[in-house]
């Protein structure tokens, strides 16, 4: 696979001369999952948008660089809380939408293989309206994988799913995104402790690392160390709130 870089983000972010966060100094490690937590409105999604090179409401003063010095935005793909599937296209066409949008001929074999890996082969001709929330999020994952980019930015992609489906999606995403540089924005300490190689807590004052158990993700939901870590993270978030 293409090199998945480490990304470092240093700087502060102001909206109308009001400091939203920072100065922060955070790093998203190469080929690993970094989970970003913090209270609502602190600017977690803004960080994703900054990395993706999308418009934001304020000004970022600082720099976002990859360790190989190459541009980041074109190597990053994005998955949101909402599946963002196009309701007028079937699953197959939705998965290849990236190529279509670039005016290129899609690789249908690869699309089929990915749809198979997310377990949706039987639903290839269905439109999003006919799929359950979990299926739609799996389709969105296949679309993200179809872009085959080394950096993947996830904005609460599992938060709207029921507990069982969410755990399944976490397993699937951890498996399929292995080896990529992943930044996961989440509100859920359990999710962060399950999936993260690192956890970063974002607040007005900066970005701080949270210590995780010495085991590798994906951690089992009943792993005692993970549960302890999750409990203390939750306690920390509640104190901070």
């Amino acid at each position, binding site marked *: 696979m293409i090199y998945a870089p480490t990304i470092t983000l240093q700087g502060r972010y102001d909206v109308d001369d009001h400091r939203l966060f920072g100065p922060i100094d955070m790093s998203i490690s190469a080929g690993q999952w970094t989970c970003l937590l913090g209270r609502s409105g602190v600017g977690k999604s803004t960080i994703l948008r900054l990395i993706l090179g999308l418009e934001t409401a304020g000004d970022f003063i600082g720099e976002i660089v990859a360790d190989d010095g190459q541009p980041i935005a074109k190597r*990053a*793909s994005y998955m949101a809380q*909402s599946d*963002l599937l196009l309701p007028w296209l079937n699953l197959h066409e939705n998965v290849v939408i990236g190529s279509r*949008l670039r*005016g290129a001929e899609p690789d249908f074999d690869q699309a089929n293989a990915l749809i198979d890996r997310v377990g949706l082969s039987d639903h290839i*001709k269905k439109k999003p309206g006919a799929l359950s929330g979990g299926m739609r999020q799996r389709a969105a994952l296949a679309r993200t994988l179809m872009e085959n980019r080394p950096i993947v930015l996830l904005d609460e992609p599992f938060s709207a799913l029921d507990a069982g489906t969410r755990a399944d999606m976490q397993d699937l995403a951890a498996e399929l995104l292995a080896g990529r540089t992943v930044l996961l924005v989440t509100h859920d300490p359990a999710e962060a402790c399950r999936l993260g190689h690192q956890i970063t807590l974002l607040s007005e004052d900066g970005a701080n690392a949270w210590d995780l158990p010495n085991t590798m993700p994906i951690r089992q939901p009943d792993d005692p160390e993970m549960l302890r870590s999750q409990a203390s993270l939750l306690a920390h978030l509640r104190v901070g709130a």
Partner: protein
Amino acid sequence: MNRLTYPFCATLLGLCLWQALVWVTDAPHFILPAPWRVAKAAFESRALIAEHAVVTGTEVILGLIIGASLGAITAIQLAAFPRLARLTLPLLVFTQAVPVFALAPILTLWFGYGIGSKIVMAVLIIYFPVTSAFYDGLSRVTPALLDLAKTMGASKTQMMLRIKIPSALPSLASGLKLAAVYAPIGAVIGEWVGASRGLGYLMLLANGRAKIDLMFATLIVLALLTLLFHKVVSMLANRLTDTSVTS
């Protein structure tokens, strides 16, 4: 109860009220003809009405096609070039402040007594609703979808073709449904001002000769024609926005 029961009952109720009005007011038949007189006139003059209905129908269909196409093209251009939109939208709204009906004599002067001026009239009357509805839809595409497309490296053209236009089709569809009802108004006004054929002309002619039953019959045919257009355009528009579960 089948799905035609309510429309049938509503029609029956309308006819009863009409007949009751005739009885109560005791109006002479050259002022307010009874339903049965109108039905009789419609039947006796069916060939005449049909001949004029074809003319009006042609005007409306051509007006709809041209007006909807121009409106859709304008909306896409406005959405693609925001500066153009800021420059021309106020102008477009201003043109709507000019009553289109007042333009009918000028249009007849410019485009003649034939169907040309009526088509232009229909085009003028539907152009703005179609443009406005579609442009609204194009401007209201879910921002997250556009962000996703940007991260995928979408070109502006592809973004328009594959995301903005399909997202805005329901808005275009509502614009078209309105247009289907407005277009006959344009055509008939055009015919009133100056024509030798068409349902609007036939209504004036019947009125002038005190054949009020024929005038009513023509009016009803015109209304039915408008309903038909609305139905057909709605069906086409619904196909346009079909997101049924399989493809």
